[in-house]
């Protein structure tokens, strides 16, 4: 039923350094990492430990200096610019610490953006964007611009944008770093729901109570993995069809089509 032959993410002896020679900064030094489909991985570490670099490599925003980086079994360095764009658009959803919404652009428009780049037609695009906004509880804020929304609301718009193209992998770089604790609970609940509906989540954080939501917690220090702790089993793929998750029905339906 579920194709688990390929891990969602596979890193083999990945290193990343900036600069060259004496002044080179080694952000990652030989990382080996397998992330199973459907897992919820928390990555922790002090600042400068290489967490963000790792995230950027997984998200195809950057290329490793040495080593191999595979997404869904595909070697990233083999892909062309257009293929990488396709991957970022369809397979990966990004959630950033600083939200990174397009300024002076409505929430709905921000969420529509990945669908525009995916060449989705106007009517379907609107429907799917509204559904994604509804799934993060912001259906009534669709016409608001980022500057009219609170930090928590902005982050929820960003999550809606990340999931609107229905990616199997969600990458979140300290998604709760800039928002208050009440909003933080809502955000984490959304991630839990996303994971429950079958999505793989990799989340960077430096807060223990955030990491507590993850099923597997990895600690990084000086560009190396220093601990890798499994806290819960990888959930089985959700039963098909998913009628009990109406808020994510659109996304899971499509995920179901893909895995059936």
């Amino acid at each position, binding site marked *: 039923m579920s194709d688990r032959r390929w891990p969602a993410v596979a890193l083999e002896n990945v290193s990343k350094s900036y600069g060259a020679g004496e002044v080179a900064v080694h952000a990652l030094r030989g990382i080996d990492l397998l992330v199973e489909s459907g897992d919820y991985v928390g990555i922790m570490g002090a600042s400068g430990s290489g967490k963000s670099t790792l995230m950027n490599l997984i998200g195809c*925003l950057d290329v490793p200096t040495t080593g191999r980086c595979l997404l869904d079994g595909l070697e990233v360095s083999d892909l062309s*610019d257009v293929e990488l764009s396709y991957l970022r658009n*369809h397979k990966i959803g*990004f959630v950033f610490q600083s939200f990174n919404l397009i300024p002076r652009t409505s929430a709905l428009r921000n969420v529509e953006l990945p669908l525009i780049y995916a060449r989705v037609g106007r009517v379907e695009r609107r429907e799917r964007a509204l559904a994604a906004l509804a799934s993060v509880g912001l259906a009534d804020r669709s016409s608001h611009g980022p500057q009219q929304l609170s930090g928590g609301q902005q982050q929820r718009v960003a999550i809606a944008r990340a999931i609107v193209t229905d990616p199997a992998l969600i990458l979140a770089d300290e998604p709760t770093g800039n928002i208050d604790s009440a909003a933080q609970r809502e955000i984490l609940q959304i991630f839990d729901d996303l994971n429950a509906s079958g999505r793989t989540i990799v989340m960077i954080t430096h807060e223990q109570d955030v990491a507590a939501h993850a099923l597997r917690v990895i600690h990084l220090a000086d560009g190396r993995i220093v601990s890798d702790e499994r806290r819960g089993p990888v959930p089985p793929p959700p039963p098909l069809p998913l009628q009990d998750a109406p808020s994510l029905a659109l996304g899971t339906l499509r995920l179901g089509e893909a895995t059936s």
Partner: protein
Amino acid sequence: MNALESLRMAFQGVMSNRLRSLLTMLGITIGVAAVIILVSVGHGSAVAVQQRIEDLGTNILSVTPGGFGGFGGGRAQRGTQSQVTELTMKDVKALQSTASAPDIKSVTPVVNGTSVTITYNGTSYSPSQFLGTTPSYEEARKSPVEAGSFFSDADEAGHVSDVVLGETVVANLFSGQNPIGSSVKINGHAFLVVGVLKPKGTNGFQDQDDIAIAPLTTTQDLLTGVTGGLSQIIVEARSSKAVNDAEAEVDSILTPTHTSNGTTTFRVLNQASLLQTTSATTHTFTVLLAAVAAISLLVGGIGVMNIMLVTVTERTREIGIRKAIGARRVDVLGQFLVEATMLSICGGLLGVAVGLVGSRFKIVGVQPVVEAYSVFLAFGVGVAVGLFFGIYPANRAAALRPIEALRYE
């Protein structure tokens, strides 16, 4: 991403910083408007000069001694055969015969007095033109008097020392006094000022009011000598349509008596050919103005490039976000190119509007005449320049690696 989405995205980009967009457009606007206005001024002055030449009369032929060798070409043949190269009063009489020249209305002989100095009350002045002629000059050359009167046929026949002055001459000699009835000395001979010509202004080459006109007989007696030939015979055709017939008649009358070694020794200048010469000159002038305007258009284009570069730098982070959520290189390229195009087109249209409005006003005494080609050319080049200079920043934006763009603060 379809065209509509690109347009919408670009529109948002343009509207998100209105002042900057406006300033960018201003560069193109000024360039396009400058091209349109300057070409219009050039064309307008060409039209004005042609109008003035036409005012002289399109029914006028000017017969001068000399072959077809250009101005003064006849001089080489003078000396040994002066009796055939010069135009004389005999030729004037021949041309006046209505039997052989039915299309000729009037014939006016003219002699040019050289190095003529007019003195009045101790003030001396040398007009650039001193003409001895007959009263028919007034009508043939459309030089009516403003005050006083032109000298009469009787004055001309009676060798009377009358003179008609142009305004520039009056201004230089009389300093505000009424010159009519005053006696001036011309190269030592006393002349009575009987009239002042109506001002004509410049014809683009010389001041037409810097002139003094006296009866032909008197001028020959006192200044040029009776033996010298005429400088010019002005032939007025019955109408501008008859001017070519009149030219043929002049040819047929003068050729038998004015041929040397198989070539004619006189030259007939048609106003039409003068028009051609001047339009060539004014065309050069227009091209020069257009070149100056083209430079301002280029500067406008560089302005677009500058602003687009700033925009790209300022929006580097936004570009990073767009790439992170799946924008391809062509998407980003398209967005910025459409923005540049939009700015150029709006700026161009605004420039056309400003140019057309600006061309309605008189500029340094010239009424601009808009030429359709300049409008299309300026608009087209303006948009092309904006687009061309938009490509580099757009390409730079598109080529950014997403992580570099995202890290940009």
